[in-house]
């Protein structure tokens, strides 16, 4: 990804060189807009984040409006024998469990799989994911670091863990500074694909400078490889600039069946709080 950005810079430089003659124009393309398809964004976890499902449809490319589906029939059932029916909530514009505290009764359990079923306009869309084990955090602390190149001086968060044996473990992190989410615009993802040995001792350094006495919350989520690929694809599409150095556009495949788009994800979350010092 980084290299791509470097070539984009080179490309911009070349453009600057031919700036006198090159030009950039907004154009309206004649597009073959397709019939709308269903998009599902389902999230459940072992944590106090409520089960929620958002259902929308695709829209025309130049349209700003994303149509929301309000009349679908939505259920989530688990291999642990749980089953919940979700209903549309006008306030949140999401499908939520009928009784809000249900998630407290049915949080996800490691090793069990959960299936989302959505019936809309006579078509059934479904997806299944498993709740994966976490990587216990050995220790977590902040270190006061001087200015390093692009990184200003500040308190940086370091995490030490021992990587789980076997390949295919994927993690997603959320980071909060005084209750403000820092990882809002991008996904902080990591996987063990390029690690040589199993059970390697890992140091993760989060590249955010904190101030002394900042309240820090770290959420570490064990997610499936497929979900990690999905988020990576979304991320790279967001940074896709259409320059000749971008990969050809490709649609992002999720885990929803029957031509549905989006993803139904199960997250196993650990949450840690500390103060920068």
């Amino acid at each position, binding site marked *: *990804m980084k*290299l791509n950005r*470097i*070539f984009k*810079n*080179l490309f911009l*430089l*070349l*453009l*600057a*060189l*031919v*700036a006198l*003659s*090159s*030009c*950039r*124009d*907004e154009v309206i*393309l004649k*597009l*073959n807009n*397709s019939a709308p*398809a269903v*998009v599902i*964004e389902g999230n459940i976890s072992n944590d106090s984040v409520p089960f929620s499902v958002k259902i*929308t*449809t*695709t829209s*025309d*490319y*130049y*349209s*700003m409006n994303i149509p929301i589906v309000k009349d679908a029939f939505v259920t989530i059932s688990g291999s642990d024998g749980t089953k919940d029916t979700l209903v549309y909530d006008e306030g949140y514009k999401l499908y939520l469990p009928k009784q809000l505290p249900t998630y407290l009764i049915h949080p996800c359990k490691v090793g069990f799989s959960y299936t989302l079923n959505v019936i809309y306009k006579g078509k059934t869309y479904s997806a299944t994911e498993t709740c994966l084990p976490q990587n216990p955090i050995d220790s977590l602390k902040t270190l006061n670091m001087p200015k*390093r*190149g*692009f990184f200003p001086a500040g308190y940086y968060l370091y995490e030490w863990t021992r990587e789980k044996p076997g*390949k*295919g473990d994927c993690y997603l992190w959320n980071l909060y500074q005084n209750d403000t989410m820092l990882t809002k615009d991008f996904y902080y993802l990591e996987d063990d694909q390029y690690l040589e040995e199993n059970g390697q001792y890992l140091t993760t350094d989060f590249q955010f400078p904190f101030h002394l006495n900042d309240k820090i919350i770290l959420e570490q989520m064990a997610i499936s*490889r497929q979900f990690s*690929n999905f988020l*990576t*694809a*979304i991320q*790279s*599409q967001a940074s*896709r600039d*259409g*320059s*000749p*150095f*971008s*990969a*050809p*556009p*490709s*649609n*992002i495949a999720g885990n929803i069946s029957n031509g549905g*788009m*989006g993803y139904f994800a199960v997250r196993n979350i650990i949450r840690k709080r500390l103060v920068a010092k």
Partner: protein
Amino acid sequence: MLKRILTTFLLFFTTVIFAQNYTISGRITDSKTGEDLTGATIIIPGTNYGVATNTYGFYSLTLPKGNYKVSFRYVGYDNIEKSITLNKNTTINVELGEKLSDIDEITISAKAEEAKVENKQINVIKLDMQTVKRIPVVFGEIDILKTVTMLPGVISAGEGNSGFSVRGGTQDQNLILLDEATVYNVSHLLGFFSVFNGDAIRDLDVYKGGIPPQYGGRLSSLIDIRMKEGNNKKFAGTGGIGLLSSRLTLEGPIVKNKASFIVSGRRSYADVFLPLAPQVEAKNSTLYFYDFNAKVNYKLSDKDKLFVSGYFGRDKFGFSNLFGNSWGNKTATIRWNHLFNKKLFCNQTLIYSNFDYYFKINISDANSLEFQQGIIDKSYKSDFAWFYNPNNKFNFGGAITHHTFNPGEIRPIGDGSILSAPIILEKRKALESALYAEHEHKFNARFKIRYGLRYSIFNNLGSAKEYKFAYDSIGAAPQVVDTFSYKKNSIFNTYSGLEPRASANYNLTKNDAIKASYNRTFQYLQQAGNTSFALPTDQWIPANINIKPQISDQVALGFFKNFDLGLETSVEVYYKWMKNQIDFRDNAVLFLNNQVYGELLTGKGWSYGSEFFIKKTKGKLKGFISYTLSKSMRQIKGINQYNPYPTNTDRRHNLTATANYEITKKWNASLNFIFATGNPITYPQGRWQYDGKPITWWAPRNAQRFPAYHRMDVGVNYYPNKRKNGKVESSWNFSVYNVYGRKNPYVINTGTRQAKGIDGKSYDTGIPITEQIALFRWIPSATWNFKF
């Protein structure tokens, strides 16, 4: 079939048994520079006897005993005629002189021989630098590859891109040889220019099919480029100062008439203008390229000649000390020509070729690392030509190449790097070898055939680690299910194939000929890149247990007709079937991935088309018009729901025209016009949202097209009078590229509209838009060239 083969052999033996034959042989060189002349003809007027010199200026003609008048001819040179009595084997070395009084007149009369329809090969176009230099180009930089893209059947990958497609093939299916050495990356400045310096190049042949069995390893084409040899009579220089780069070439004898050298260098100075650019990033940047060609040749004896040539070029791009990029090719060729006897000529060649890409980042102690990848080839070739008699010639030989592929190494710089140890992807090694034989047989004045066979073998060599992949579905991310390790230098996988090649020529009349050809080609390596540009980061990967070699079969049929007015015309049609074509699955991970094979999908491709060519060679107005009507498709499981889709290089229409008009002896004007169907492109068909992020929903691959590409370039060349007693000859070239300022789309971006708020800061409105970037409009240029 068997009967026909027998007939061929009978014909062949009749000449053997009944004639008492002797051979005339020798070398034809340029009287002014001593350089070998390739394609000069040796003709016995009034008979069918005639041959042409090979790349090394060597010819051999075997005739029955008798008295002959022999004519030696070459394009743009005076003819020389000699009378001989042939009663023993004779050596005749001839020096032909360029006629200076009126070059064009001479060109016409001498060209007449070459222009004969019977001497034209189907699928092949020869380009001399004279033609190339008259065509106006962007920034006035003479570029042979840009000229190649104007030929029928060849399609430019786009503006600001040196890549091209031949008869629907991909860019990595072109075999580009510089003095026999493969050039893996032909781009300077990411493709704005090609790596070939026009001053160092003698000539080139473009094979769109009917590739001689001597060559192989790529599916679609052979671009055979030869460097100049250097003047062995006197010291001379040429050079030029242009808008973007300057060049200087020096050549001369080392030992008069025996040994000569040529050195040629070029450097761009675009970076000089960088501080003028408005962007801050531009001001602190490095951006330049240079290249260097050198060649020495030494005549060891009448029978032995040695050549050593090399190319070295590099592109550099960086920003302060924070990061740097650098890439380039190095090639070296050592050749030894030997004449065993009057009829048997051989050529032994050692070749080295290296392409590497280097990248360094040093933004902080923790974030400091360097990255390197590349490919190295070492080859040995042995080629023989046996001039059995005027009607039978045999070519045979073999070649072996050792490839080393370096898929990538990342090393930390200093102690503070986050990278505790280097990450080194294992180098891949392979051997590619071939044996070939070819027979050129002339039945009579009308009918000529050329057929041969190439047997190629590809071995993957250890040490290596290979993976077996499994997928949830076709096109999904790969999962490794098995790993195999192989010992050092063990051959763990082998592919081989027979590649028949054949062509036939039948002359209907003196001015009309029909030609046909068939060829099969194998390609054992390919470039892993999925952007529309060939980036220096796109690594070459060999066929292995996961990827089979690409195979292509092509048939072509052509009709050639000449008119007395100096008009040469031709129509060629072709059909090509391609197997094991590769493409990448959606969202493929290519960079620094030692399991890159898991990201590949394979399928079939096919392309067909017709090519029309009209060339005017006489009079004050000269030039050519070429039109190609073609289609190029692919079908790959896992892409586009297995529906066929047009390849990136598919263009329905491609029309190019170039003309040069001599106004006076001092002034001539030239004009180019190009029209091509727009590139296939994947457009959005809608949008959706996930986690508040807008996501584009794409239509089927390459289902739509850019607007058509067209432009016109104009130029004038001015040759001032040579000053009395002056040694320096100079000329000026002025041109305007894209003279009517057509906004040809270079890229079309999808994004959101940016706007300026009341505070003056720009912000994202979130409104989806599409925008187009057009590159070159009204680019004027001036170049001053000199010669002494």
